[in-house]
């Protein structure tokens, strides 16, 4: 279909004939308030917030249920439209409890934003006249529901009916008493349930995991990639360094990427942020005793000099491509064997047909692309086994063992701390071969060595 020309606030736009007006306006950065419309869920037309004026039409129209026409003239601001929006917003807020001080959505709440942009009226309803409903209901899957704060946009119910097709949520009751709920005795239970928290434009659905941990305006959002599986979903890592404390991650949020994950991520990936700060290996351990860094590095050097012939380097398939490349260079210089056994990273039960890949190693494709061997021959005698955070490390026999660990829980002659993926920058190749750059997100007060820094140190020994 051919493109057509429309005019929005005096600006001419060439747009496809079959795209909804609200999508066009959003794409061209016109501020259109909206609760029920979402790119992933399509239009529903129930919130009535996206009113625009169209030349020749008697009344304002909702942009989410309007298709563009040749020569259409649209106005998104103006006295009439502002007044309409204000009145609709007042209706949306009529039974809202205004409990922003205890609401986790405060700071990223559309009701707050739109009130400041289009509202600014004095309330006509007393707090005592508001309809009260149930608050802090645990819906299951780490989601909390507050029925009073809901604007009934039905994004959450459409998510469970159209996207996950699990149909847990519905709107029950009529008029003032309509509310989002699950069936009696049933829980919200699917692998993508927490996406409703991001979808909810107000504080009706909040995350139980993030509940009361931080106010959102303190958080810094850094774009990154989820390391939960080989899918490589795009995320925002929300983190904050509080006074006298270290940089801490508080949550993962999905970041839109139509090529990979659309608007969503799975709950396992979302909650995997906890691993970044739990059970971390922070000190060097030599023969079961915590030692200073210089003692550890000299022990490492001695071990390396002892075994110059039979070194095996185990590389984790979760390391960045640049790190794997530097390990390849290192193994070449040390004349060592570089391997990366993959079996333990494959989990058939984890996979599904959407965003969860059974390949749990985030950079499995890079191992394949770089041609790193995935088989360790059984007969080979291993003098020194050097593991870079590989899961199989405890099962492999060797004379001496060194492991660079992000997390505690293994036993070796020498254990050295390693920076986690959030503390390093690098490239991930997802299972479809899409290369994605991850920024360094966390800046620790006392930074840990990354793989490349360890490699640089090891190369110094050899020469």
């Amino acid at each position: 279909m051919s493109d057509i020309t429309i005019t929005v606030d005096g600006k001419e736009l060439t747009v496809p004939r079959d795209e909804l007006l609200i999508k066009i306006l959003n794409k061209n950065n016109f501020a259109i308030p909206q609760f029920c419309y979402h790119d992933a869920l399509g239009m529903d037309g129930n919130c009535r917030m996206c009113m625009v004026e169209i030349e020749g039409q008697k009344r304002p129209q909702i942009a989410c249920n309007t298709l563009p026409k040749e020569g259409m003239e649209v106005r998104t601001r103006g006295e009439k439209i502002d007044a309409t929006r204000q009145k609709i917003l007042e209706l949306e807020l009529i039974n809202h409890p205004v409990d922003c001080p205890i609401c986790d959505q405060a700071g990223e709440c559309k009701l707050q934003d739109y009130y400041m942009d289009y509202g600014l009226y004095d309330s006509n309803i007393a707090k005592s006249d508001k309809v009260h409903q149930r608050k802090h209901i645990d819906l299951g899957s780490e989601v909390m529901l507050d029925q009073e704060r809901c604007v009934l946009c039905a994004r959450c119910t459409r998510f469970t009916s159209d996207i996950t097709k699990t149909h847990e949520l519905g709107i029950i009751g009529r008029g003032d008493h309509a509310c989002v709920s699950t069936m009696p005795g049933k829980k919200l239970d699917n692998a993508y349930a927490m996406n409703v928290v991001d979808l909810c434009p107000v504080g009706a659905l909040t995350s139980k995991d993030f509940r009361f941990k931080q106010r959102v305006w303190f958080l810094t959002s850094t774009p990154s990639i989820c390391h939960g599986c080989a899918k490589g979903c795009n995320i925002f890592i929300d983190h904050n360094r509080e006074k006298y404390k270290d940089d801490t991650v508080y949550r993962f949020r999905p970041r839109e990427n139509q090529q990979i994950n659309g608007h969503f991520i799975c709950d396992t990936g979302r909650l995997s942020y906890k691993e970044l700060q739990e059970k971390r290996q922070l000190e060097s351990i030599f023969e079961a005793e915590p030692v200073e860094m210089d003692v550890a590095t000299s022990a490492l050097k001695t071990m390396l000099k002892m075994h110059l012939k039979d070194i095996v380097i185990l590389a984790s398939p979760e390391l960045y491509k640049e790190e794997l490349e530097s390990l390849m260079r290192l193994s070449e210089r040390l004349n060592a064997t570089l391997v990366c056994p993959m079996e333990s990273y494959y989990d058939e039960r984890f996979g599904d047909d959407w965003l969860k890949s059974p390949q749990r190693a985030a950079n499995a494709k890079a191992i394949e692309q770089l041609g790193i061997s995935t088989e360790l021959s059984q007969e080979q005698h291993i003098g020194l086994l050097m593991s870079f955070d590989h899961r199989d490390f405890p099962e492999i026999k060797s004379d001496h063992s060194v492991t660079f660990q992000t997390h505690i829980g293994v036993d070796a002659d020498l254990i050295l701390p390693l920076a986690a993926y959030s503390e390093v920058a690098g490239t991930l190749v997802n299972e479809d071969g899409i290369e994605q750059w991850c920024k360094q997100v966390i800046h620790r007060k006392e930074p840990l060595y990354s793989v490349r820094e360890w490699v640089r140190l090891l190369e110094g020994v050899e020469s």
Partner: protein
Amino acid sequence: MDKRIKTVPRYGTGFKDRLYLPAIYEGMKITFKHLKDNVSDSNAIDVLEYPEEQPTDITERYRGLHRLTHREDDTVACVACFMCATACPSNCIFIEATERTDGVDEKMPQRFAIDTLECIFCGYCVEACPCDAIRMDTGIFSLTGNAREDFVLEKEQLLAYKGAFGEEKSIAGK
């Protein structure tokens, strides 16, 4: 030129100003006037013999040491909304929020501490509070301690202080 740079007119370029002597004369006139007054009648000098003599002019709007107020049912009024910590220019309010299980509300502070050594007593926290939970009406103007840690007032201490001007409970929502 950079838009952020604002050119202000330079004053004091006239002959009289460049001479300095008239300005010095004006200043010294005031100094000697006070010297004469004070030497002639030393009892008229306005001094407070602190600490033997305590100030009596601390009014309701005086910003004294902070306290946390209670609700009508004597439970903590604070809901840990972090408004005070957000408004605080010296970042000296440390709050950890937790779930409130007594049915009065949903959220309350697990920890609420003010580092009074860092506090500049600007009163922004009181202004920002939507629950009238933090006030500076204790009338306390001096705090002593033996260690730096003594000056970090925790929730229990802040709740124990009484208001010095009658109004005891939080009046939020009234």
